[in-house]
């Protein structure tokens, strides 16, 4: 794993924010991945010295402000997801790519469920199963991040 500079983290987060602000229409709104969450999770698991729970919170606040939802909703769900992600961070080196993908899938599902809970608490209706589609597009984005910035798992030496 090559070392990561803080500049790369900040630039990718900025790009993720722009993608979040992109005017999605039609099916795109349903399918669009949670850019900020996937990027923040990647850096959190890849370079925990540069990115921690606090960074996830700031990313969540930015998403809250951008989407116009209740201030703190995304921040809360991002913080909790980041914490759970971090608690297994040192063991991820031993995972194979499939296990890692499963781990990230679990984290994304957890965040969606938490967000759904908060939204239902606020008084919204259950939006249907398509609400969970961003988890799958998020996994694709996750693989894209790995392609661009390197895998988390140990490379095969044999």
């Amino acid at each position, binding site marked *: 794993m090559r070392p990561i500079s803080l500049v790369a983290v900040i630039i990718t987060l900025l790009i993720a924010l722009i993608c979040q602000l992109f005017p999605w229409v039609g099916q795109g709104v349903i399918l669009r991945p949670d850019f900020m969450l996937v990027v923040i999770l990647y850096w959190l698991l890849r370079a925990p010295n540069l990115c921690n729970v606090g960074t996830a919170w700031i990313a969540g606040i930015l998403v809250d402000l951008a989407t*116009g939802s*209740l201030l703190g909703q995304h921040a*809360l769900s991002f913080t909790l997801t980041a914490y759970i992600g971090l608690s297994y961070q040192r063991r991820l080196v031993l995972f194979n790519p499939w296990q890692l993908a499963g781990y990230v899938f679990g984290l994304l599902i957890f965040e969606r469920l938490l967000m759904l809970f908060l939204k239902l608490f606020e008084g919204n209706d259950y939006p249907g199963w398509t609400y969970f589609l961003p988890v799958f597009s998020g996994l694709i984005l996750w693989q894209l991040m790995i392609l661009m910035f390197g895998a988390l798992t140990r490379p095969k030496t044999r």
Partner: protein
Amino acid sequence: MLKGVHQKLEPQQTPAFFVRGASPFSRMVFFCALSITMMAIDARLNYLSQIRQGFIAALHPLEMVANAPSNWVRDINRYFSVHNQLVQENYALKQQAFEHRVRLQRLSTIEAENTHLRSLLNGDIPIQPKAILGEISHTGRDPFSLVVVVNRGSQHNVKAGQAVADSKGVIGQITRVFPFSSEVTLITDKELSIPIQIERNQLRAIAFGEGNNTLDIPYLPANVDIKVGDKLVTSGIDGIYPAGLAVAKVTKILQNPESPFAKIISTPVAEVSNHLQLLILELPQAKESVPTTKPVEVKNKPVIEKKSADTSADTSSNSSAQPSSQTATPKNKAKPNAPN
């Protein structure tokens, strides 16, 4: 001597292999508490709206960057639109303009007659609302709330609470205003209600958004005189929506033998998803000013005014069937199946 070395080494003895500052757990607890506090403040108090506005203004350049690709695509499409198509469109528009002009002639005579009759009866002369033309810049990014964002903001004198319509009918109401953009909550949003009138028999009622592209008219008795296909128009007694704008068409009436109320479902006539231009109508000046800093209050406004109008002027038995204690608090809207 040995002790001295030990003292020198002492600060290094804390393990420095994984420097992480505060432990993730304590950070998690701190930030969770912070976000829950912010949610509570944002939901109950209005201190954070200023911060939000400032942030949205700061985000404007980023938003322009994000919007650029789709704008380019649109411009390129416009540039390459076929000549034949333009000619056809021009022809159709000219025809439409001609028809409208003919109709407008009749309208002006009728309007003059109406003002004259009203002045004879010492009535108020209806005010013609002014409007600002806006363009939808994007739909809401939150799948839970039905909003669109338009490219007109406080710099263009847009205020929270203004009604928004397109050529077919009412779209919704401005709920948040930012310097260069503002948020329009659609009438189908669960938070919004709109005072309406059945065009056929002038029956007054309130329509509530259902959150799934339909409107619900609760608290009307099962034998109410509403048919499928009836047109709903704004009644204009709320002081926000001008009277007579088309709102929706009744599409379904469900009769539930266990409930004393009819379940009336209607679909909006405005076509939000079909075009970009919309009109932001000015608030009528005659009524008292609407608080601009509290969007939630503005949402509640039509209903409260409807209630007072009901108690003062309503003599028809049909529309007084609405339980007033429930209409006053649309936040905890009771479903028609659950009378108080």
